[in-house]
């Protein structure tokens, strides 16, 4: 029996992976060849999806991108024996794009069957939990603190400190909430983990629960991710059946329950307090802080709210130790960040690397430049609230502090590439429009300011009182920066001001400032 691997990842499906898998089933049956098709996650080299890998005695051999009409010719050429064909790629792990990554969190994604507990266990799964069960809660938290892991959801707050607060908070009930709202444009690493290795998230949340004494977890998943929901629920069911969730986990006497809850299309529900309101069944209005969710969180109880990648990075930390993880990275940015290359880029995909690479290396050495072949003009890093970076900033190392120093953010590690046909005044206007659309409405600078922002940008572009309106736009951005309760209103000025500062010509302005 020959094993074929064809992804069930959303992006692979969006390019026809399902039809390719069906074609292989059909054609091999017609030819009397016996194959098993494993629906794995994606390796993350999306320009090669749908990718087909075949297991041969010499190892895995890949072909891609494969369309259903290629299948017959591939079988004729001897794909099942790993023979040559124009779509032959060899061992995917030998391609520089894959080989030069540091895959810690994504170690299994694209390799295993995402919902097979057997595959997970055979590939170092649940080793972190095993270690955690032998430790005292404070020792587990110490590993996470020592690792230097900072929240991957955007704010980069040290995860160990958050856990410690919940550990020390008193309460008969505590919760672990996974923020799987991933609404930023250009980001898909959370989705890829949930679709490609859901057990690693489940394990991370279970360890978090044991560390702080929380017996119930919720994954707040955006409704735009139906495939992730299916994979998570399949994996959760398998974990319950095999004693990895529920009462008395692996005979330890510890309890942890886990449930997936769907969001309903509100970007602001990614903000942690708004998310908690939503989980409680309310409108997603942002809460005032303090009190912190770590003290008064879900249903008023101490709660850890962490991003998917933050939690999915915990198993390897508990498996190999905090020091191991900390050895990757630079400065105060430790470990690895799953970077996501998107937009107008030749080689889009997921690239997990230690902090410290430059944007330029990533864009050109791995990303291969723009998809259109035109010059890259601007890159928005960190989602819709992130700054537009011009070419002069492409040598910035990927490091939280280095980005902050130039008024940019790394955020969730998403890069959206724009070529020279993009008008940055349009993008600035869109940033304000997005804020109008998604504001929770609690504070005036965000709710009303964004509407005014759209109008002011329109006047600048239409050349109405240009100087006066540009000054007004800067004032407005200042008010939003200082007067907003959360980063929705407080960071919308980042894309707007960066566009205005670095691309004034798109607003019909003369370059004044550097």
């Amino acid at each position, binding site marked *: 029996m020959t094993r074929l691997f064809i992804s069930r990842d*959303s*992006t692979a*499906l*969006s*390019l026809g992976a399902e039809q390719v898998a069906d074609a292989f089933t059909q054609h091999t049956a017609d030819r009397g060849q016996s194959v098993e098709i494993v629906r794995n996650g994606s390796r993350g080299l*999306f320009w090669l999806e749908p990718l087909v890998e075949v297991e041969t005695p010499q190892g895995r051999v890949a072909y891609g991108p494969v369309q259903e009409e290629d299948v017959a010719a591939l079988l004729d050429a001897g794909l099942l024996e790993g023979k040559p064909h124009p779509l032959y790629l060899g061992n995917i792990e030998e391609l520089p794009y894959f080989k030069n990554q540091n895959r810690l969190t994504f170690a299994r994604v694209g390799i295993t069957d995402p919902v097979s507990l057997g595959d997970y266990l055979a590939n170092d799964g649940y080793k972190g939990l095993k270690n955690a069960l032998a430790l005292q809660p404070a020792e587990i938290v110490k590993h996470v603190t020592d690792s230097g892991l900072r929240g991957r959801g955007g704010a980069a707050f040290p995860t160990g400190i958050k856990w410690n607060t919940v550990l020390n908070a008193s309460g008969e009930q505590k919760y672990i909430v996974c923020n799987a709202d*991933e*609404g*930023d*444009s*250009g*980001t*898909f690493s*959370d*989705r890829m983990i949930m679709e490609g290795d859901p057990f690693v998230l489940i394990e991370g949340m279970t360890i978090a629960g044991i560390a702080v004494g929380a017996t119930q977890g919720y994954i707040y998943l955006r*409704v*735009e*991710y*139906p495939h992730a929901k299916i994979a998570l629920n399949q994996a959760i069911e398998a974990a319950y059946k095999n004693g990895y969730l529920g009462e008395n986990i692996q005979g330890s006497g510890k309890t942890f329950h886990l449930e997936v*809850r*769907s*969001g*309903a*299309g*509100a*970007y602001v529900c990614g903000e942690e307090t708004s998310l908690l309101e*939503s*989980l*409680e*069944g*309310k*409108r*997603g209005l942002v809460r005032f802080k303090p009190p912190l969710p770590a003290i008064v969180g879900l*249903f008023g109880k101490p709660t850890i709210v962490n991003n998917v990648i933050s939690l999915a990075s915990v198993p390897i930390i508990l498996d190999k130790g905090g020091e191991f993880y900390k050895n990757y990275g630079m400065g105060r940015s430790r470990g690895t960040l799953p970077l*996501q*290359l*998107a*937009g*107008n880029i030749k080689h*889009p*995909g997921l690239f997990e690397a230690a902090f410290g690479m430059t944007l330029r290396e990533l864009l050109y050495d791995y990303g291969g430049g723009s*998809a259109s072949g035109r010059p890259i003009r601007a890159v*928005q890093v960190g989602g*819709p609230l992130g700054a537009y970076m011009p070419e002069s900033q492409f040598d910035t190392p990927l490091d939280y502090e280095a980005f902050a120093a130039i008024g940019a953010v790394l955020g969730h590690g*998403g890069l*959206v*590439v*724009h*070529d020279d046909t*993009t008008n940055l005044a349009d*993008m600035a206007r*869109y940033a304000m429009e*997005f804020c109008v*659309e*998604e504001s929770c409405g609690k504070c005036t600078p965000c709710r009303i300011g964004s509407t005014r922002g759209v109008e002011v940008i329109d006047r600048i572009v239409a050349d109405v009182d240009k100087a006066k309106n540009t000054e007004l736009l800067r004032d407005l951005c200042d008010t939003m920066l200082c007067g907003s309760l959360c980063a929705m209103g407080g960071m919308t000025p980042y894309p707007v001001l960066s566009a205005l500062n670095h691309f004034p010509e798109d607003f019909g302005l003369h370059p004044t400032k550097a």
Partner: protein
Amino acid sequence: MQNYQTQQSTVLEILDAHRTMPGSLLPILHGIQDTLGYIPPAAVADIASSLNLSQAEVHGVISFYHYFRDTPPGKHTVRICRAESCQSMNSKALENHAKQVLGIDYHETTADQTFSLEPVYCLGNCACSPSITIDDQVFGRVTPDKFDSLLAKFKGA
């Protein structure tokens, strides 16, 4: 539009199934929309009394979330991604094309009730923008031509 009397038993069943669930309002609304295609305005009173909330509170929640709708959708729902990555790959042209061939704007349904058109902000498919979904299926690198052939396929289905 359907008569609520024929839908009420479904709503009551869903309410009953969620009786003990903490924070049950969103799961209930999803349950109703998944089964009926939308949340009938007449259901608000039943939801409110079951959860001991005011009707205004329930209505406030439904209207806060973009995903919930209070009118029946067409047979298929087309969602076009309007976010930055898709814009960088010219989703604007795709949006204009879609509105033109469907003859409707966002939040509208074609006269023959076949397609509803909705905007969406990122599908996590940014590695092959522009992206759309039709019902639960995602499609990447959607050109106007590809859009037309997808429509033709769903129209027949």
